[in-house]
């Protein structure tokens, strides 16, 4: 099976969907001539031309709205935000327009659109460029929210997102773009709303998504070799709708759970997971569910402070030892 980067997996997904469906187009800053700020759209302008790979002015609110309008009349836009930090300028269109249109029109006007781009922290980009907004969008009924962790999932989920008839917020990661993984040559999709067990285990469930899948997997390896604990790593992949049945099934076997996420703790994705599981799986729990998150501060620039703010395998291991009553 070919091994390609997460970046190229996303590129393949868009290329294939644009070949498959003439209503799909890509719009955003630097997506065309420049080949993408992170080169995710490399080669697409040459293949599909400027009416389908559209360079925009720096006007996030405006071009997000153009995408919503095009979707309302039957197109399938993919709107690229250079990062999700800049997408805050466009959040009115995502929340007030895209997420509401189908409902408030009484089911007449669907908005099949994908908003995508990198989210979360990279390296030393400081407070305004290092934010994970998953929980903001997952809060909104009418939106689907996806955050893939591997090249395979990135391609399969983006293809599903483009084909979906609802607005999908698709959060990638700058630090993931160079990650390599196996991606089959043949056509496949990954359905939205399905979590994936990335590593089986019976002692504790680690719930994670996007970049924290890597954190959880590293922690799981060390838990096995250094602490004699087999962790099951469950990658949420889609944050709305949340795949609670898969989590319940895992927890039924492990009885212990730690949620790892890149966002801030307050009202985070982990808070939602804990809420669901204390209701759905109360009798399976042998310990309170713990969370590992980014520190509850704006991201500092200094690299030592930044490292201290991000969730780490050490923090995950410490949390697992506590839910296992080893500490």
């Amino acid at each position, binding site marked *: 099976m070919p091994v390609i980067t997460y970046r190229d997996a996303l590129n393949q997904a868009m290329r294939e969907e644009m070949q498959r469906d003439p209503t799909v*187009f890509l719009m955003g800053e630097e997506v065309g001539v420049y080949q993408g700020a992170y080169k995710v759209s490399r080669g697409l302008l040459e293949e599909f031309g400027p*009416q*389908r790979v*559209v360079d*925009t*002015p720096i*006007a996030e*609110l*405006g*071009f*997000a*709205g*153009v*995408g*919503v*309008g*095009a*979707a*309302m*009349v*039957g*197109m399938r*836009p993919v709107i690229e935000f250079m990062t999700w930090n800049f997408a805050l300028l466009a959040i*009115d*269109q995502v929340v*007030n*327009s895209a997420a509401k*249109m*189908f*409902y*408030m*029109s*009484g*089911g*007449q*006007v*669907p908005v099949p659109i994908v908003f995508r781009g990198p989210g979360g922290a990279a390296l030393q980009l400081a407070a305004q460029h290092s934010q994970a907004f998953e929980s903001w969008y997952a809060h909104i*009924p*009418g939106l*689907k929210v996806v955050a893939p962790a591997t090249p395979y999932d990135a391609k399969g989920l983006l293809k599903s997102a483009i084909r979906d*008839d*609802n607005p999908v917020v698709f959060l990638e990661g700058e630090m993931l773009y160079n990650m390599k993984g196996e991606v089959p040559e043949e056509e496949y999709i990954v359905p939205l709303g399905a979590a994936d067990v990335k590593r089986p285990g019976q002692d504790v469930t680690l719930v994670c998504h996007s970049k924290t899948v890597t954190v959880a997997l590293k922690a799981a390896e060390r838990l096995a070799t250094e602490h004699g604990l087999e962790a099951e790593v469950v990658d949420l992949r889609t944050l709305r709708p949340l795949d609670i049945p898969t989590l319940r099934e895992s927890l039924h076997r492990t009885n212990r759970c730690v949620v790892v996420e890149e966002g801030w703790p307050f009202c985070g994705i982990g808070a939602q997971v804990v809420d669901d599981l204390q209701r759905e799986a109360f009798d399976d729990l042998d310990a309170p569910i713990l969370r590992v998150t980014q520190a509850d501060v704006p991201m500092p620039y200094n690299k030592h402070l930044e490292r201290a703010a991000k969730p780490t395998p050490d923090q995950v291991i410490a949390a697992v030892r506590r839910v296992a009553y080893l500490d």
Partner: protein
Amino acid sequence: MTAAPEQDQTLDPGQRDEYLALLRRMILVRRFEERAGEAYAQGRIGGFCHLYIGQEAVATGSLAVLRADDYVFAAYREHAHALLRGTSARAVMAELFGKATGCSRGKGGSMHLFDAANHFLGGHGIVGSHIPIAAGAGFAIKSRGTDQVAVCYFGEAAVNIGAFHETLNMAALWELPTVFVCENNRYGMGTALERAAAVYDVSRRACSYDMASETVDGMNVLAVRDVMARAVQRGRDEKLPTLIEARTYRYMGHSMADPIHGHYRTKIELEEQKALDPIAHLQHAMTAAGMLAEADAAALHADVEVEVEDAVRFAEESPDPDPAELYADVYRS
């Protein structure tokens, strides 16, 4: 700031039927809004309810030149636009009443009227948010290579919001067949445009984007129609956008919850503006030209009365949405 009343156009006897149709539509909008105001006062319409009384010539004249396959987007003062686009008075009134038979099945209300079959795509409640959305329809039209146009209606207060400028720039840059119709009724809620804008000649805003623009007397339905016809032609033939500023006036408060006059405008100003009434303007011109007998006018009003009363009765008698509707249409499966 007040638009100079334009010279009365000489009425063309060959267009009598069209004048009559425009007059009837304006009367329908006026009477519909009056009855909506009454129903609101009686508590049968909830939430915010923004009436169009005084502005009838703008939507009536401009929508008259569109084709059924064009796309129309409006803000939250849009009962008229839905009616004039072809949604029945019954379906609009029922929506205001929140009933299952409403054009948005009781889920949208006064601010979110939708009728996809008529290409009437809202009903948008955030000032300026639908301006880029309309340009998106223009983008889709351009992609498909058809000769449709997208039309966006918004108030003058929206021209100070970023979305307006971002959109005009992109529409001009990308040559999107979109007509932006600014309904300048002079007040964003209670703030006069002169108090909110450094440049309050709205059509001049188009200069920054090298976009065609025209200012028109928004109390004159025929003038609006003619300006709109030029803009739509520009969209169809040249694939270019236009900004139209229609200078008009609302007789009611910003919404039914707001005072009609008071701190922000005087009763005297209101009465002066009412003297320029768009319906009276056309009716008098037609009468003076011998195109409208007194009996014809009376019949027109009576006919509209029947239609609006029927709509109110229909709305009253219609059922509320089924409770299961609460969770319907959050997502399309």
